[in-house]
């Protein structure tokens, strides 16, 4: 077995260094040399396995790894290319002074299923059935309408902040459809489609953004920073990439409790520059946990284009460096996204391994309501992506070609949705704001004395000078 693993390395060595390597003959009498035991993943360390999981490795694998060593027979020579014994990496030696080039000769290709006109270019994809496909399209439209109404409402001053996912609706819904509803999702902020898919009602979106007492965040978190324990959608935190290690921790928890579920995290290509991304993905690979790292590479991080964000082969190109399976997908191709996420999820859950997906797309909208992207990019570029490369339109062409959608109902659908969203917004505004006590509750599991006193002071201040405070805060 030792020689089988070593000769595999020899083959790999030939591929990497491009020349046939002379095999060294070891003298007879070499008794033992520690070679990585076979239960190690790629020979570079023990596999960590929780107690109770069916596996050949025990949870005592660390000591097993230390104890085991392969003894080479002392009789006869062993034809083997010399493998270096460094604990850091099982690698072949070379006498060529050669640098690995900074860019790979071939970048990770981009998987797609549909042409821009919605024609199937391959049969190699998971096809959603008719009802799912119809739901997918309707939800994409709903997301578009939601974004449009809410964005305008913010401009009118009806709430403080909003960020659309314009141009990424197909990505949102296709991802959500490919996951199970109880997979733990750790979003960045441009993935409300996942919530929508799982049943978060339009009224709930409105309540949260308005910040009334019925919003699940109790008016504490910004708009679009949704969270729903019930729908396994973990509350958005504004700081980029903090959710990525959270997702790894959740995956660790899922694996420990042997739940056949996946942890999923979304982030942009800009957030992937954060330290948290690197620490988390590295750790997920070491831990071997069921997690999907889904990067929405939409080309812009506020005003920073991707060309200034990284020099390597995007985010998918990093996967192999961390020992993580990765794929690059056309994020505006809903079927490609659906298929890839579905396949990745299966890999993750069945093999307890992380998978990295880079969904290439374009941020058609501004970063948020605090941004005017025409200041740093060409309007022509925005228009091109919006009019010619829209993922929702592409998907619609496909389902129309399948005979599952009638384009003439589109206008009415949008009108109805628009009316509904506007009504939800108005209803949300009419509801009471969270009570003053919600300023202090949930800081801890129970209200401590210090906060009780601080609440008293606030109440006194409001009672002494009611005209200085908003009238719609219930005391």
């Amino acid at each position, binding site marked *: 077995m030792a020689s089988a693993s070593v000769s595999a390395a020899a083959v790999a060595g030939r591929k990497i260094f491009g020349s046939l390597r002379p095999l060294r003959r070891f003298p007879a009498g070499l008794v033992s040399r520690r070679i990585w035991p076979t239960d190690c993943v790629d020979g570079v360390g*023990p596999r*960590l*396995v*929780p*107690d109770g999981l069916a596996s050949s490795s025990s*949870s*005592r*694998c*660390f*000591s097993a790894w230390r104890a085991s060593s392969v003894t080479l027979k002392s009789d006869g020579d062993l034809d083997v290319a010399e493998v270096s014994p460094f604990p850091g990496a099982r690698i072949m030696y070379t006498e060529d002074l050669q640098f690995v080039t900074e860019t790979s000769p071939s970048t990770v290709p981009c998987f797609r299923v549909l042409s821009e006109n919605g024609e199937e270019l391959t049969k190699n994809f998971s096809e959603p059935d008719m009802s799912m496909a119809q739901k997918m399209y309707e939800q994409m439209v709903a997301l578009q309408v939601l974004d449009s109404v809410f964005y305008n409402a913010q401009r009118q001053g009806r709430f403080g902040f909003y960020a659309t996912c314009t141009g990424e609706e197909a990505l949102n819904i296709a991802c959500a459809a490919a996951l199970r509803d109880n997979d*733990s999702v*750790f979003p960045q902020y441009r993935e409300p489609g996942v919530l929508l898919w799982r049943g978060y009602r339009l009224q709930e979106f409105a309540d949260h953004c308005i910040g009334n007492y019925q*919003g*699940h*965040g*109790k008016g*504490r*978190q910004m708009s679009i*920073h949704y*969270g*729903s*324990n019930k729908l396994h959608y*973990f*509350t958005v*935190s*504004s*700081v980029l990439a*903090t*959710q*990525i*290690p*959270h*997702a*790894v*921790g*959740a995956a*660790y*928890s*899922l*694996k*420990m*409790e042997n739940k056949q579920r996946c*942890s999923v995290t979304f982030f942009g290509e800009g957030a992937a520059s954060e*330290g*948290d991304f*690197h*620490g*988390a993905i*590295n*750790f997920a690979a*070491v*831990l071997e946990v069921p997690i999907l790292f889904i990067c929405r590479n939409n080309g812009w991080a506020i005003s920073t284009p991707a060309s200034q964000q990284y020099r390597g082969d995007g985010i998918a190109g990093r996967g192999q460096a961390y020992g993580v399976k990765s794929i690059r997908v056309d994020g505006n191709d809903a079927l490609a996204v659906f298929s890839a996420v579905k396949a990745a999820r299966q890999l993750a859950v069945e093999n307890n391994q992380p998978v990295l997906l880079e969904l290439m797309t374009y941020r058609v909208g501004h970063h948020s309501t605090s941004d005017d992207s025409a200041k740093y990019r060409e309007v022509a570029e925005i228009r091109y992506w919006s009019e010619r490369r829209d993922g929702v339109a592409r998907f619609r062409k496909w389902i129309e070609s399948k005979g599952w959608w009638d384009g003439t109902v589109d206008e009415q659908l949008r009108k109805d949705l628009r009316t509904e969203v506007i009504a939800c917004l108005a209803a949300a505004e009419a509801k009471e704001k969270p009570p003053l006590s919600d300023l202090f*509750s*949930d*800081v*801890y*599991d129970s209200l*401590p*004395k*210090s906060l009780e006193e601080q609440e008293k002071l606030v109440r006194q201040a409001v009672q002494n000078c009611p005209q200085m405070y908003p009238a719609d805060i219930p005391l």
Partner: protein
Amino acid sequence: MALSQGIMAVSVPAAALLSASSSYSAARVQTASSSLPALGSRRGLAVRASSAEQSANFGPSSQKLWTPKITTNAVAAKQEAAASTGAKGPGHELLLYEALREGLEEEMERDPHVCVMGEDVGHYGGSYKVTKGFAEKFGDWRLLDTPIAENSFTGMAVGAAMTGLRPVIEGMNMGFLLLAYNQISNNCGMLHYTSGGQFTIPCVIRGPGGVGRQLGAEHSQRLESYFQSVPGLQMVACSTPYNAKGLMKAAIRSNNPVILFEHVLLYNLKETIPDEDYVCCLEEAEMVRPGKDITILTYSRMRHYVLQAAKTLVNKGYDPEIIDIRSLKPFDMFTIGNSVKKTHKVLIVEECMRTGGIGASLRAAIMENFFDYLDAPIGCLSSQDVPTPYSGPLEELTVVQPHQIITAVENLLAK
């Protein structure tokens, strides 16, 4: 991070830290009386007895120390009732790091959701051996060795906590947790609130901090001052094996994120602790020595320096009341307040920097609440606002010494 690997080999005998008697608080404390039993009869920290010290009798006397069931209030005397019978069992003697380990082990046995994450916590047993033997017992999965990415593994623990586990995060040195500040402040402390109470984060963040022996500036951080502002966090500091075990257990059982501050030089402190299961109250201060002349508030390693100084003070005829505040966030204003109302003079002794330290905010809190009871400005002895130097004598100059405590008390009482 690699530097500190060699540091755990430094083991400081308890005797070097505290020259003579110190004691931990008991469930009941005898009312103030001039005669207290001799050293030998007390359950206290291992001490070198000397005839001179026999006269310096102070501290909690024989008392009803432990009840057979779990003691949720192991702190003295809201009532300061008289003590009654002696302890139920003989107790067992161990070092502070062993007490932490015992507490952690008991909680891990009790609740399978408790897990530990940190660098070298697995088969290495932790840099200070707090998790020694755990990986063999609980497996590699529950004793997770993390790569060197504090922010990331703290984030992982937050995610695991939100999904139902109860992680204990070990920072190899508290100073390294500055790298995890983002996750601790923006997520640990906040997510329960911003999610509208939907997600809880019952994690414990622990590790050694404080000034050690020539560990250099980066390994001598006092992070309690940095974290005290973060809403949503609770902070406690242990100082004896008894409260170390009790606070560890309480922190793990708490549904809030708790930071447990240990001190790098206290790990080898020896004490006899109860055999029975007990938990300390996270929010309560510990009455170490009741008195009437002055209230000395302290925590962590400085407690032992204060006790050392108290020996001399008592010899000189003073009667200091010493409180180990233990709960750094929130402050136990009840115990502290009762003391201030009795003594009217306060001295805070801490290892934090002068500016923005625990002492600074404690002073403000006392002044705000008990101004009318004070007969003098609140004194505060802290370290200077300098990075801790490596050179031994220089380092010693940055840490409050017992003679400074004595002088400060005398000055305050002269007012």
